[in-house]
């Protein structure tokens, strides 16, 4: 723990510390919805989740929340991911851990939708 030497330093530390509390806050920049593995058979969702976490960590991005979701219909195949950002909600159906990394890097963090993989379906 270092000495805070001015009010500007205090405000800087506040911003850094707020990043750590994002999981507890109401408002975040990006909400990431990810499917879950079912009871007996794994569908690969957990691997997608782990890749997602790893990518976010690598890119030192903290303004997100991850929310797990069960199956949501036959048109969105598991593993799926949905990104809620800038008031828009985009699904990515039937993805791999590597696709998840790409979606995180370009859509979640930079706001560029990966159109090739994006599903047509709208809201959750």
């Amino acid at each position, binding site marked *: *723990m*270092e*000495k*805070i*030497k*001015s*009010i500007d*330093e*205090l*405000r800087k*530390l*506040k911003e*850094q*510390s*707020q*990043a*750590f*509390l*994002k*999981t*507890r806050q109401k408002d*975040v920049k990006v909400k990431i919805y990810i499917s*879950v*593995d079912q009871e007996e058979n794994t569908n690969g969702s*957990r691997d997608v*989740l782990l890749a997602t*976490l790893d990518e*976010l*960590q690598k890119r*030192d991005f*903290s303004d997100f*929340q*991850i*929310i*797990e*979701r*069960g199956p949501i219909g036959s048109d969105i195949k598991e593993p799926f991911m949905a990104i809620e950002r800038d008031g828009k909600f985009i699904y990515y159906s039937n993805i791999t851990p590597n696709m998840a990394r790409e979606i995180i890097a370009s859509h979640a963090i930079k706001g560029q939708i990966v159109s090739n993989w994006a599903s047509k379906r709208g809201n959750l």
Partner: protein
Amino acid sequence: MKTYRIHALVCAGTQCLAAGGNGFKDALIEELKQHGLTEEVLIVETGCMGSCQLGPRMVVYPEGIMYTKLSPEDAKEIVEEDFLKGRPVKRLLWKQDEKQFLTLHDTPFFAKQTRIVLRNCGFINPEDINECIAQGGYESLGKVITEMTPKDVIKIIKDSGLRGRGGAGFPTGLKWELANKQISDTKYIICNADEGDPGAYMNRSVLEGDPHSVLEGMAIAGYAVESQKGFIYIRAEYPLAIKRLEIAIKQARMSGLLGKNILGTNFSFDIELRMGAGAFVCGEETALINSTEGKRGEPRKKPPYPVESGLFGKPTVINNVETLANISVIIEKGADFFRQFGTEKSPGTKAFSLVGKVNIAGLIEVPLGTPLRTIVFDIGGGIPEGHTFKAAQTGGPSGGVIPAKHLDIPMDYENLPQLGAIMGSGGLIVMDETSCMVDVAKFFLKFTVDESCGKCVPCREGTRQMLNILEKITSGKGTMEDLEILEKLGNVIKLTSLCGLGQTAPNPVLSTLRHFRDEYIAHVKDKVCPANVCSMK
């Protein structure tokens, strides 16, 4: 920075720990290990979350799912269902009136509350100063010492109308102004954390859940009155609060937020703890000063008031924990923000520990002036097991009872005294028809008889005489004349006692005599205790 997808906030307030919270937490840690989730789930031990009766409690973010009455056996299911599959464990949710509530914000318990003092309680890790700073902690102190003069600070606190939350309701800004005007090389700030009312634990919860809010309030007070030294007088029966305060003070010093030249300015302020041995009288400010000095905890006569001659004969400001926890919010958001809540003469909010015969007992905070009915029935969920509300006791042994016909009374500094009750520090004990009001008065009086320091005659001898009479009445040997003696004696003790303890000790008797005289008469004339509590001989 390491990020976690789930923050599991486990209540580590004294109430939840007493209910077995540690056992659950240990089981949860074990389950996380077994499922390989330790890198994804962060366990945060927080201060009191409020609805203590439903403890041990846990809130799981990002969704804020709230689990109640947890036992170690529940940990596995929560990890496998919620943490791994995103499915809330329904059987552990908050249930009330046949309804289930997913998050705290959905509950009727929360809906009518306003959280200023308890803003961080149950939300941050009180042992990590960074979590406090993330929530804006110490920013008000920074603003005060870099942008404001002591007079500016006093003005904003005066404008806010903040009144002392220890019970008496003295305007805080005025107290600071009086201390500021004193000319002295040394002045002191004391935080009164000697919460002693039976059933009251608001102050303890603030100290356990958000200790930095109190440290910051003290430092701001120090700047306003030009003091460099503060003491927190806290009872030794609060070991967890003491531990968290010690950690908080240490972290604040290491961060340069206490000590010499705070944030690179000329302002220096440091804080020390003083542990009290748990005498009720030491909550009285002059007795508290004596005890802090290492002397016997007996009150001094006033004047001189502590702001003129307090600790070691120096000008001293004594503020209650809750008063101090309000300060940084007033500085940050302004006097007008604070005045949005509460009433004209009693602005702001008040924390209560709502205990006794209510469905959801716990720590709450409401705007001043909130009707008692709202607190007991909307927030507290009413009286359990089909019983009926009989009375509520405010102010503990110094307070009085509010009977059912006055349920709509606004809870503030103006209205409560009109019924012979007082605001007090926030203990609120709800009683149903199974409580005997004479017995209740006897309970509180016995407490003050035990706790009287013995320095002045009216309190030492007078309360003892009153207790003897109450014992006579509750064993069926009282006379109608006794009731008159009780009233006469009570009024004399109030007028002639040296300190607040004696001056308020007769209140429980006088107020029950006023509102439940029939019950006294039944004991005396019919030799019957209507509530079937007292055993008549």
